[in-house]
């Protein structure tokens, strides 16, 4: 029975199927918010699903010079990596499905994988635009990855653990301590825009410059998979930020209705709301900035974001000395 439960977790809830559905919903919310911020109507609720189905029905074209096997395998890789990352994030209480000490590092690396697959996808497409997009993806990775890691690891320093579960537990016991990580939260949410390749850091797929960027040559099912990976990545990133920086409400007192303990359900709903709140902030960032140039982006990340993250680490170390002895 144990294996069946595992399989259920990985494939259905909170794994692949749940994530795909939630990803589609998140994409819709993001697009709708973006549209409403721009005073547009935005898409109807089924639009992301319709887009996905349409892509599935489309003809797949693989460039003659591209490495066909790599070309086909990469989207699957991207989806697998992000889905795996989600399994380590605590959702309805402070315990996640699979947890071990150091899983926060694993999640961060799993989140780096899709970026690498984007790079490889562009590189193996052999098209000019895709290659330039690929190089930009990689260049950008070096700029935002360090501030992102530092920003997300700061709460871990204060909590004195490398396990997401322990971090969540620590902060739900001391909710006020989250305020000390505010700077790290801001740094991470900006860096995540880079990871998700959203404005102002959508440089690798800047359509007015390099057409479709890394995905220029992708079409049909493969592109649909990549789109799905990006949608899921959006949720996983938002969930990670929510779990690390906004962990309150995770271990409330049991709420019982008609003898049933619905506390996990309530907590889970609160968690979803937190994810949506973070998506709202990300949509806001997307709508108020112009796309930066790659050199400006690197400048910004190393001149402002990385030092800010360092300051946050410093704060965490000092606080740790004072508060937790």
């Amino acid at each position, binding site marked *: 029975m144990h294996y069946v439960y595992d399989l259920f977790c990985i494939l259905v809830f909170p794994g692949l199927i749940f994530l795909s559905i939630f990803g589609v919903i998140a994409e819709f919310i993001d697009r709708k918010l973006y549209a409403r*911020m*721009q*005073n*547009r109507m935005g898409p109807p609720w089924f639009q992301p699903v319709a887009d996905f189905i349409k892509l599935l*029905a489309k*003809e797949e074209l693989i460039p003659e010079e591209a490495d066909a096997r790599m070309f086909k395998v990469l989207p699957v890789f991207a989806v697998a990596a992000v889905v795996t990352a989600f399994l380590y994030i605590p959702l309805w209480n402070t315990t996640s499905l699979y947890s071990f000490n150091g899983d926060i590092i694993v999640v961060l690396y799993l989140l780096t994988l899709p970026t690498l697959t984007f790079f490889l996808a562009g590189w193996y497409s052999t098209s*000019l*635009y895709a*290659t*330039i997009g690929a*190089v930009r993806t990689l260049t950008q990775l070096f700029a935002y990855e360090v501030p992102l890691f530092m920003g997300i690891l700061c709460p871990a320093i204060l909590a004195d653990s490398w396990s997401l579960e322990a971090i969540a537990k620590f902060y739900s016991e001391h909710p006020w301590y989250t305020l000390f990580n505010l700077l790290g939260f801001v740094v991470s949410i900006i860096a995540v825009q880079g990871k998700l390749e959203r*404005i*102002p850091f*959508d*440089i690798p797929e*800047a*359509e*007015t*410059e*390099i*057409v479709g960027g890394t995905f220029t040559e992708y079409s049909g099912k493969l592109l649909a998979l990549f789109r799905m990976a990006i949608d899921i990545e959006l949720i996983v990133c938002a969930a990670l930020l929510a779990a690390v920086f906004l962990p309150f409400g995770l271990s409330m007192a049991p709420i019982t209705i008609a003898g049933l303990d619905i506390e996990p359900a309530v907590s889970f709903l609160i968690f979803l709301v937190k994810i949506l709140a973070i998506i709202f902030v990300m949509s806001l960032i997307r*709508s*108020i*900035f*112009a*796309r*930066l*140039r*790659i*050199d*400006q982006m690197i400048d910004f990340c190393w001149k402002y974001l990385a030092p800010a993250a360092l300051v946050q680490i410093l704060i965490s170390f000092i606080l740790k000395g004072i508060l937790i002895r």
Partner: protein
Amino acid sequence: MAKVTIPIGPQHPALKEPASFNITLDGEKILDMIVKVGYNHRGIEKACEQRTYIQDMYLIERICGICSHTHSTCFIQAVEEIAGVQMPKRGLYIRTLVAELERIHSHLLWLGVAGHEVGFDTLLMYSWRDREIVMDLLAMLTGNRVNYAINTIGGVRRDITPEQIKTTLAQVDVLEERTKYYIQVATEEITLIERLSKVGTLSHDDAIRLGAVGPTGRASGADIDVRRDDPYAAYADLSFKVCVDNHNDVLGRTIVRVSELMESYKMIRQLLKNIPEGPVVVKVPRKIPAGEALSRYEAPRGEDVHYVKANGTDKPERVRVRAPTLANVQAVAAMLKNGYLADIPIVVAAIDPCFSCTDRMMVSMKDVNASKENVIDWKTLRKYSIDWYRQNRGLDLSKIKISKRW
């Protein structure tokens, strides 16, 4: 990364019309570029010679969709000069009014396009939404949103009523309020300024040497404006400022355009306040006496020049058109020197290019070149897609009924 040459165009998301920029890159830096124009040669100058002046009016209006009033006015001014028409004042005022409204719509459109090119879609959506106001005004005054067809030889085709004047004034107030906001955006939004400032620099000397016109020239400190230097229509009666800026870059071009919007509002108020009573059109015979004239017009994009030669019949002997983009496109290469790949779209967009105006003509020569096989009719297309889905997806879609109208 080794040197690569990438094509921007003839088809590219950043270009709304066909032109081609072959760019040699070293990483992200531009080493060299070759500009190719001429994809849209439509044969308009030749076609003009075979049509009457009245037909030419509408043909020339369609040189460009955005500055249609520009071209038609410029052409008609030349014809009127040859014919020696004494123009009715009210007609000239209405012509100028439409011209300024067109400038507003063109500049707002440009602002949105510029926003889009640097990935600032919110600006695009806002400025295009506000552009609807001026589009509605144009529709109200002339009948249609584009290709206004308000001009005719000897005046304008449609008069304006006092109610329309009132509506226009009210809407101009709204637009002015919005434009103030855009000035604030253009001068205060950090990421936008990062992307526009010090990009696509064209020094004052280069601008003069390469003959840059319109906002492109004015943003490089060239104090030129046909409306003031060679006044036409009702511009001699108006008082306005020529907006010159010394940034020499894309930011300067943005500032010039948004400040010109403010000047246009001022001009529209003056026009509507002082519009004289009287007829809007005088009758001009179909046959225009022999003669020649050169007409200049300050289009939203710069100086538009038409040369018309008449030979005494109802058809012109020669019509020569030079759209502002042709004067500006040569400056693009100078602007992009040592630039970045990422700056190409915005620098190209900053001259507000209109390649269809520039090229004017392609020989749709008796449809000789479009052989029959190139045209797929609806039934064939439908059959093709049904076959494709049957073969590749195993779906039989032939049973699906389509709307009766089809």
